[in-house]
């Protein structure tokens, strides 16, 4: 009896040691990024081979952050990325949940075909679409006003909408919503239907208010993919005005040789996403795990 207890305790300790060792490998680069962002370049390089690389040094300061905010357009890039991500999240939740609602909760011919096509689209990587999409948006018109006159601009380059509109419809999100809506018990909306409620009422008053978890999941998926966009903005955004943060840091990386400032930049654009992830961890983990079961 005692022996078994001891063995279990030993086993638990051994597991803890192994898991911690692996954990250090996974977290060390991120920890190094944050810690270095508070150090001067000399201090970063002074003791790379010791533990102190991961510990605060005496010369702990915000100088790198000040430099990055003053020397680069980081504030403007942060604003762009925030706006783009917010628009993609809100718009994406609306259009994707509406399509999923029509497939899961309305009866019409062809919905099974639409569902099959959506599922098929989940496997198409964005890299496949990128070049053709580039030549498409180069030709699309966009309305605007110049000197009080209505004009049609040709081409979607250097704008916010070119970074938002193509990413609203998201096959993975439609599928997420569809799975959730399908499993909501029909009794919930049958009563409303009996009272003569139309599909709008059903969608806005019954289904969506009962879909908190899947809305949170879709929001996280859309937010992280929008915030981490890189390939698309480097192709369609040449100027600085509408540049988001990921191409922004790549630019800065090529221009400066201060590692402290680069790490400060990286910390500023990474911590918000890490914070969102930590806040919604439970839903996020559930959604990622769900992708594998169905696959």
């Amino acid at each position, binding site marked *: 009896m005692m022996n078994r207890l001891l063995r279990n305790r030993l086993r638990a300790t051994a*597991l803890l040691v192994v*898991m911690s060792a692996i954990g250090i490998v996974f977290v060390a*680069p991120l920890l190094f990024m944050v810690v270095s962002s508070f150090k001067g370049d000399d201090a970063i390089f002074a003791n790379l081979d010791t533990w102190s690389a991961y510990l605060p040094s005496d010369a702990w300061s915000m100088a790198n952050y000040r430099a990055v905010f003053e020397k680069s357009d980081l504030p403007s890039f942060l604003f762009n990325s925030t706006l783009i991500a917010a628009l993609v999240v809100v718009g994406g939740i609306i259009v994707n949940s509406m399509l999923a609602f029509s497939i899961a909760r309305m009866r019409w011919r062809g919905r099974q075909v639409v569902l099959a096509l959506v599922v098929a689209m989940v*496997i198409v990587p964005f890299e496949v679409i990128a070049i053709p999409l580039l030549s498409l948006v180069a030709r699309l018109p966009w309305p605007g006003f110049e000197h009080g006159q209505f004009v049609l601009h040709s081409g979607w380059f250097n704008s916010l909408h070119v970074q938002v509109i*193509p990413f609203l*419809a998201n096959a993975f999100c439609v599928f997420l919503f569809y799975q959730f809506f399908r499993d909501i018990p029909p009794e919930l909306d049958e009563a409303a239907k009996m009272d003569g409620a139309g599909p709008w009422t059903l969608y806005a008053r019954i289904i969506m208010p009962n879909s908190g978890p899947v809305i949170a999941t879709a929001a996280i998926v859309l937010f992280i993919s929008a915030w*981490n966009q890189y390939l698309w903005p480097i192709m369609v955004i040449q100027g600085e005005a509408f540049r988001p943060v990921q191409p922004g840091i*790549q630019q800065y990386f090529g221009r400066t040789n201060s590692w402290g400032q680069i790490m400060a930049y990286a910390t500023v654009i990474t911590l918000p996403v890490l914070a969102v992830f930590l806040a919604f961890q439970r839903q996020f983990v559930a959604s990622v795990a769900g992708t594998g079961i169905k*696959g």
Partner: protein
Amino acid sequence: MKTRFGHDGPFAVGAFAAPAILLFLVFVVLPMLLAAGATLTNHRLMSPEPTQYVGLDNYRRLLAFDIAAIDPLRDGSGAIVRDDEGVRFPTWRQVRKARPELGSYRPAFQFDVGGRRIVLAASDPLFYRSLINTFLFAALVLPLQCGVALGLAILVNQKVRGRVFFRTVYFAPVVTSMVVASIVWAFMLNTDRGMLNELLRNLLHDPNAGPDWLGDSHYALPAIALMSAWQGAGFQMLVFLAGLQSISPELYEAATLMGANAWQRFVHVTLPGLRNTIIFVLVSTTLLAFGLFTQVDVMTSGGPLDSTSTVVYHAVRSGFKEQDVGYGSTITLVFFTIVLGLSILQRMLVNRGNT
């Protein structure tokens, strides 16, 4: 009045389904159709010259290749010429002069076997170089990332205190953008002052140990694979974890009663139970590996000596940087065909498992 059992009105259905379907049609389907059309033209992004129909020229330029076996150089007496680096072979220019059918082909890849040199020559050698690199990267990252992910899933599936904490830690790199991960790792992989080499030097007690990770064509791709596995393993870990938790605990109990040890339980209960999860993870990791672009663009720009150029990197280089949309689209479609083939393979494997 609406009937409960009939079909919904077309206007109501249209209002709900149309926005997303329209967006899919315009931003996924239409680009693919345009791409298929563009592959038959010399269309350029923002070019004053009119686009011309060129037939299958783009495909010929991309895919045309020949495999040539080259004999070593021999001197007057017929003996093989050698120098410091071993057997000497004729230069490509000499080979082409002797064999005009090799035309405008240039070598993309070569290896020596049985005293002869086998050369893969192509009209776009960079495409074949990129294709080989892409497969090589997939071959490196697939076992590494999936193996690590499975190991992590088994660890965090144990009933120990703090497993949620560790799950979060292992997952944190997934949330970090690939650009940031690439930049931080570029620092860690630095030859002279990077942490990895400092660590190696301390372990080996050799002040000169440690390769030039990103500057040596032998190490650059493996280094990028290492970094990619670090960034992505947490995602696959969660998928494996869901698979592990769907295996009935009774199976483990039965196996234990029958005297199976931990390894036997892993082989005879865990692996068969994870069959479909493993296929899903393998295929999704392969698709991700084939999309390799960001790490290459940030860390190496395809170098050194094209050793990290990939299919997507080549497509972006042609279609965007050189503005040759017709050619870039051709690479895109060939890439799509490969991705589609892999997905169909997955479907076949899964179906076979179910019957």
